[in-house]
């Protein structure tokens, strides 16, 4: 069994003598006898490191990951290439093992990373204030609801159906706590229904929630949609995919009061859904209502430049029940990964990556639309994800593709009954033209087989999906 303790019998004897007790058990005497467990936990005996490794490797082997299957699944988390320097830097002890930087004199590294990260997110979103990160995307959306309620004194959220279903559900979960209600606005031709949105917003609305690109991949007309929010004094909250912000007009230029989102595409691996991070940016007038840590620049007593956690009076450890949020531990290391990835991409590389996604996605969208039994679900412009309709049961088609080593996409019917035949397909820089061609071929064959048009030999796995 593995141990990370080091007290020898001699150490123990000396320590017990110093404490003035005969046994460690005596120290546990403050726990009333009926509450002592009095038996070993019903867990296995400990193991050696090698055995634990083998056990975990065996579990990992029972998952079909993106090395085993070509991954066209997105829906908020994407199979991007994470550059090697991200791993090298985030695995450094000095970043991996400290606590939250409560002692700034010995935490300048982490604090400066936060400051650099805030600058990057502010640049991406076009909003002046960024925090140092929240847990992840959907709970950041819920946190924006809490802020909007405090800022406006209103308790009604108008939410586009193009907002990620997980975000809508998380917002609804939190809203029960702080007593707010949600009004949903549907989609038309893939985009948020502008008329319905305008009709839904009124003087009781705390915030309007949009996502850009929306869950179906469509680039929304954020500025036009947000006009209703402006007119009624509601906040405009826009959830964005950060990887699209090299080319898309930033939310800050479209009237957003808050821009936030899931940070995973930036320097974070899929990890079956986490840990990643959420980012949260806002206009200057919301700075003292922001959730989470914010690093600020200052000087030390010798006039030397330094960084500290700024405006801690917003936070739970100072302000307790009057805090702007309850968050403590967030996702600092994941935000560091994002910062290193963004520095590696750089100003030009970040824009180029956005363009690459648009070009490959346009190709994939056309290529798939040409397949018998595949129709576009909408014609709206897209960046890196698009939706199609299949003329065969989606689950069956996905299963056939999976057997050929392709994770073909995300079935929309899970959360959108109106798109029971819908499939959401995501593209990253890792998805080559050859893989996209394979996907088209596999989808065509699977649909045909489901329609009983011609038999397909499902045991032939040779050419697909591996390149």
């Amino acid at each position: 069994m593995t141990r990370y303790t080091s007290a020898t019998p001699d150490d123990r004897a000396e320590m017990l003598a110093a404490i003035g007790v005969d046994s460690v058990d005596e120290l546990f005497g403050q726990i009333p006898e009926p509450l002592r467990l009095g038996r070993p936990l019903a867990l296995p005996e400990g193991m050696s490191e090698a055995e634990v490794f083998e056990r975990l490797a065996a579990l990992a082997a029972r998952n079909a990951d993106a090395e085993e299957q070509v991954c066209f699944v997105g829906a908020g988390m994407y199979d991007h290439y994470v550059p090697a320097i991200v791993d090298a830097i985030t695995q450094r002890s000095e970043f991996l093992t400290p606590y939250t930087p409560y002692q700034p004199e010995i935490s300048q590294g982490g604090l400066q990373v936060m400051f650099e990260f805030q600058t990057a997110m502010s640049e991406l979103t076009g909003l002046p204030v960024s925090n140092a990160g929240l847990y992840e995307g959907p709970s950041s959306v819920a946190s924006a609801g809490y802020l909007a309620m405090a800022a406006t004194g209103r308790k009604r959220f108008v939410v586009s159906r193009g907002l990620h279903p997980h975000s809508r559900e998380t917002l609804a979960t939190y809203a029960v706590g702080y007593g707010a209600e949600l009004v949903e606005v549907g989609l038309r031709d893939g985009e948020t229904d502008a008329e319905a949105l305008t009709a839904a917003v009124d003087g009781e609305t705390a915030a309007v929630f949009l996502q850009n690109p929306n869950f179906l991949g469509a680039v929304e007309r954020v500025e036009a949609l947000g006009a209703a929010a402006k007119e009624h004094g509601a906040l405009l909250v826009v959830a964005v995919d950060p990887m699209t912000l090299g080319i898309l007009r930033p939310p800050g230029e479209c009237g957003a009061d808050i821009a936030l989102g899931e940070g995973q595409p930036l320097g974070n691996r899929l990890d079956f859904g986490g840990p990643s991070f959420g980012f949260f940016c806002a206009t200057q007038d919301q700075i003292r209502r922001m959730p989470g840590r914010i690093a600020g620049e200052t000087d030390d007593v010798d006039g030397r430049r330094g960084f500290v956690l700024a405006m801690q009076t917003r936070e739970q450890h100072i302000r307790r029940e009057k805090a702007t949020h309850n968050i403590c531990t967030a996702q600092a290391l994941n935000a560091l990964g994002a910062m290193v990835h963004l520095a590696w991409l750089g100003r030009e590389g970040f824009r180029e990556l956005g363009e690459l996604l648009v070009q490959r996605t346009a190709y994939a969208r056309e290529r798939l639309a040409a397949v018998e039994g595949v129709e576009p679900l909408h014609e709206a412009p897209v960046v890196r994800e698009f939706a199609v309709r299949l003329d065969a049961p989606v689950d069956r088609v996905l299963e056939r593709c999976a057997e050929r080593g392709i994770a073909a996409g995300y079935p929309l019917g899970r959360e959108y009954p109106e798109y029971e035949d819908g499939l959401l397909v995501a593209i990253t820089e890792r998805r080559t033209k050859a893989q996209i061609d394979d996907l088209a071929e596999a989808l065509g064959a699977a649909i045909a087989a489901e329609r009983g048009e011609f038999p397909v030999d499902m045991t032939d796995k040779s050419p697909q999906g591996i390149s």
Partner: protein
Amino acid sequence: MAEVETPMQRERATTIYEKSKTGRRAAVLPAAEVPERPLEELIPAELLRSEPPRLPEIAEPEIVRHYNKLSRRNFDLDTGFYPLGSCTMKHNPRLNERVAALPGHARLHPAQDPKRAQGALGLMWLLQESLGEICGLPHVSLQPSAGSHGELAGLLLTRAYHADRGEERSKVLAPDTSHGTNPASVTMAGYEVVKVATNERGGVEMDDLRAKVDGDVACLMLTNPNTLGLFDENIAEIAALIHEVGGTLYYDGANLNAVMGHSRPGDMGFDIVHVNLHKSFSQPHGGGGPGAGPIAVSERIEPFLPRPQVVRREGDNGNGPSFDLDFERPKSIGRLRGFQGNFGVFVRSYAYILSLGADGLAEASETAVLNANYLKARLAEGRAGDRLPIAFDRHCMHEFVLSGKPMKKELGLATLDLAKRLLDFGFHPPTVYFPLLVEEALMIEPTETETKESLDAFADAVEGILAEAEDDPERAKQAPYTTPVRRLDEVKATRRPVVRQQLS
């Protein structure tokens, strides 16, 4: 006693943006390979941005140097003693990083069909079972992303539980020693927090509690052992009082490291427990996350757990069991976040539980308690014993709280000064000025993974600083001297916040 010999990097801070030069770059992207069309043909020009964001332009070698240099401006657990109370800064095994990075974990898409994610769902189920056994409660949700998220979940569960019984309650009780996240979570969940006093033994003041318990109390939030490091001996009576009026009892698991394998919150009467995987279960703190805050709950709370829930289904026709995500939970409070939670953290913590096993977890808590009591005894000697008395003089569990009140009065040294001077000797200071009811508080949690030598060295450093202050109190009051920067102007950073780099 010697100050650290090699000061951490002291050159002036330069941000990566200040190292940027037009035309430099690191990344080379793959070729598009597909026929390219003008961007404006694909996306209307008015939806495109005119200028790319001003990210740094810098080559890879300089990126590496920049962040390596920054890393050397951090103090970290792998380098030195980190006795931060209530934070459980225990060793972070590297094995856990290795297994979390296996492609089967790291490159697994969260929307993968459950039948092709059996290893991941199986691991989550095994972790749920393990945490349930450790907490003494049968049902676990891994979804909350951190302790505070678990607290919010627990309060929303409480609200759902009462609503299901047709009740609406408005108050949540929490002791004056509670973590700041407790009252903050109460407010977010739409309740009003009512403070309960602490008695002379460091536990809940029973008369005050009795006076405040009524049918409007939704929940009592408690940490046990509490933030003074003391086990509340009246817990059974407290639980009975709350349950009599139909409230729930919430256990803040920040201090679970004291009792693993020795006492279980479920057996104490708690209905809902959160577990900080980044404390007791060795997930690295990462400079402020990631963590995870799974919750374990009793039978009556189970129907309301967040969805989806990882479930095990018995196999049929001779097949083994399988694992699935259960969305069909009509009474669920709903989602607390996207997908299934911080899976990478689950991998690390499950590896930790497998490594230590039942006996190892119990031994870890035992040693944590031994180390804390030993350090407490060492600090009860000499100058520390006079100037930094223990706030509540009894055996502690995994942490203890000293008061710097006499030190301040007699030497003019505030707790903050002692903390800053400790930096010069290579120690991370304890948690300071918390809990709030102890004047000039120092909250010390050594954890089980420290050696006796580390504890002795820390006690010697405290003694040395107090001795120094008798002759030269200014030395500590101006400390630190060896760090990349010295005391920083936090007021300026808050009054006129500069929270991003200005770029030209």
